[in-house]
């Protein structure tokens, strides 16, 4: 079971986890990313490239399912204007093996950060700016790349 959603609205981690738990694998790992309100942030706006986003998220889920014995993958990413504390992203995986669930969950969020065409713009009252990509994210994603 692979489920991928890109949506403006919120999602309920409980529903997604319950769906993965119902698969009976025994191990469910998840990661939720939220908007941090640091420095007086008033809005986070998420732009994306619709035709490519779905394709890249699906490719990542397929790669994870090829590398680990997974029985379920859920990837949900929100778009549009979000306030401090709101959820941005959910990655959740199910497997019969805890290491497979945990590692694939880390793989998916690390690689999503560099491979999926989303862009964040932060607003602080009257000022707003597009967020710069972080080198640390490239490093985190690179550790999952295997020698050819």
């Amino acid at each position: 079971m692979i489920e991928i959603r890109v949506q403006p609205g919120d999602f309920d981690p409980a529903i997604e986890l319950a769906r993965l738990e119902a698969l009976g694998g025994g191990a469910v790992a998840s990661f939720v990313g939220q908007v941090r309100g640091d420095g007086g942030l008033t809005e986070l706006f998420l732009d994306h490239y619709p035709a490519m986003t779905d394709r890249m998220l699906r490719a990542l889920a397929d790669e994870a399912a090829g590398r680990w014995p997974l029985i379920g993958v859920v990837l949900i990413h929100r778009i549009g204007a979000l306030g401090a504390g709101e959820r941005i992203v959910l990655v959740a995986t199910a497997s019969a093996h805890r290491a497979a669930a945990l590692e694939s969950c880390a793989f998916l969020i690390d690689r999503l950060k560099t491979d999926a065409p989303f862009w964040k713009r932060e607003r602080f009252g009257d000022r707003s700016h597009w967020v710069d990509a972080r080198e640390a994210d490239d490093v985190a994603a690179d550790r999952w790349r295997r020698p050819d």
Partner: protein
Amino acid sequence: MAVDILYFAWVRERIGIAQERAEPPAGVVTVADLLGWLAGRGGGYAEAFAAPERIRAAIDHAFAGPEAAIAGAREIALFPPVTGG
């Protein structure tokens, strides 16, 4: 060769449009060539592509480096490094 060119994030804002259909001349072979050609239009284009190393590209929904050939592309997207998640 006509191709759809899409812009995202601050690239889109500087150029002022999200998408256009363009016909790059024959000498425009790679993504880097395309950036140079677009920058040559001046104005927002020159501003958006002043530092081409800050631009990423996708050809038909797959990431493509500056040396990638654009021949046969139906849709080319130009944007800053991604910042999702």
